[in-house]
């Protein structure tokens, strides 16, 4: 007897039910999730859409937790092959969870893993209906990774092309986000005036679009830039606005980066002890969130200030604590030279300040 296998119709769930299922799924311990998949409606596209949205919102505040969850959903959808939604939905969610996982790894400075996740996302997005848009979002993350690896020339060459793609695809938020990369490169290339202009334009664009996340990030970068120039009034004004936005969004990374900016301002204004306090406050936040790259960068900055205060032994301890993390985070080759010099100077008990300063440049507070 020949017969056609029909899928037993399951009543689809609404977007509100999907969001509730996503919250339930994320509240369920990862080890228990797969066995409760039908009760948690894990194969429902609405649940997956809700889960992706929730994970993206938590990326900045709990990247390690987001990574674990993104990996769970990715593995769940990948094997055994599950029937999810219609058309390209399974491929889309596989690509999306891989992209979220890669972004979380990038934020955690786990760069090799980030690249692997981005490759996975690329493979799945090849089969989505809107692959140009999905690939462009992926390209943004890859460029952000390049900024962190200080490949500035490549970023400056590729950013305009990506902005053009986003504009053609009518993805205005994403086009504006690309301007951030441009601004960050200008910051890193020591062109603060041009960087301030760029971030002011982003601030205006984000306000016009009502995009608080982009607004907060632009303000935070303005805090750091004005602080670096010793422009106290502008830095404090931007920091007040930035803190309001980040607290509204419950974004701990944003708050920590503003504290970092305030630390920079106090340092430039010649108040090293107060600056160290502000840096420590940022460091505590980053430690709790698991952002090792930022914790390490701050250890080096604090060590530099301790040297200013004549506390050489405390500075040495700070650097010694930072070294294992620097080893773990894959350092770019240029940074390796500075690291070797610093390590050597620590052994000789006379810290090489040039190497120290060069090295914390490789971990800058880029938003």
């Amino acid at each position, binding site marked *: 007897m020949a017969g056609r296998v029909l899928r037993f119709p399951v009543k689809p769930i609404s*977007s509100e039910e999907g969001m509730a299922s996503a919250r339930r799924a994320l509240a369920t311990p990862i080890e228990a999730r797969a066995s409760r998949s039908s009760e948690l409606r894990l194969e429902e596209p609405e649940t997956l*859409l809700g889960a992706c949205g929730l994970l993206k919102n938590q990326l900045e505040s709990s990247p390690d937790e987001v990574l674990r969850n993104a990996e769970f959903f990715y593995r769940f959808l990948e094997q055994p092959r599950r029937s999810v939604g219609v058309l390209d939905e399974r491929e889309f969610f596989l690509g999306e969870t891989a992209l979220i996982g890669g972004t979380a790894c990038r934020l955690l400075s786990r760069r090799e893993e980030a690249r692997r996740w981005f490759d996975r996302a690329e493979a799945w997005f090849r089969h989505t209906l809107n692959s140009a848009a999905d690939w462009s979002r992926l390209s943004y993350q890859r460029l952000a990774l390049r900024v962190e690896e200080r490949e500035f020339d490549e970023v400056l060459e590729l950013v305009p092309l990506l902005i053009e793609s986003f504009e053609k*695809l009518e993805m205005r938020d994403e086009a504006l986000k690309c301007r951030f990369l441009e601004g960050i490169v200008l910051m890193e290339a020591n062109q603060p005036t041009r960087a301030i202009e760029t971030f002011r334009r982003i601030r205006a664009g984000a306000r016009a679009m009502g995009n608080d996340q982009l607004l907060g990030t632009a303000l935070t970068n303005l805090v750091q830039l004005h602080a670096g120039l010793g422009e106290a009034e502008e830095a404090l004004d931007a920091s007040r606005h930035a803190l309001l936005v980040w607290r509204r969004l419950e974004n701990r990374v944003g708050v920590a980066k503003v504290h970092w900016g305030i630390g920079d301002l106090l340092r430039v204004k010649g108040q090293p002890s107060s600056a160290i306090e502000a840096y420590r406050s940022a460091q505590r936040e980053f430690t709790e969130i698991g952002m090792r790259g930022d914790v390490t960068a701050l250890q080096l900055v604090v060590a530099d200030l301790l040297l200013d205060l004549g506390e050489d032994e405390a500075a040495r301890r700070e650097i010694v604590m930072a070294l294992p993390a620097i080893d773990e985070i894959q350092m770019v080759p240029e940074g390796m030279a500075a690291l070797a010099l610093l390590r050597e100077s620590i052994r000789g008990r006379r810290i090489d300040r040039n190497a120290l300063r060069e090295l914390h440049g490789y971990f800058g507070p880029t938003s």
Partner: protein
Amino acid sequence: MNRQIRNDQVDDLYDRALPVIHTALENHYRLSEQEAREAEQNLSMWFHRFVRRTGLSHTSARSLTLSLLVAACQYARSFQIWKHENRPTDEALARALAREPGDVASELAERLEESS
């Protein structure tokens, strides 16, 4: 964008494209009446989720409609390839299946624009 406005807009876009989709499913891709209805139901659910994917919040009605038409053509094509095990006996259907869904969708979009 307000969620309710977006939902209403998506309903409106779908309803306006539906006659063109229905004609394409039945006449171009040779789906039966019942198969076409089932396809339309699935497409409606897919489209309402599609517009909520990241990055599409400012996408114009024209682009969203084109994505819906591409989806409809891809759905119908995959369905007929599966149903006829990639060996359709109907020549017109074979010709339809040989075309890129994106090309067919662009023609449908032009037709839709002309009619509105």
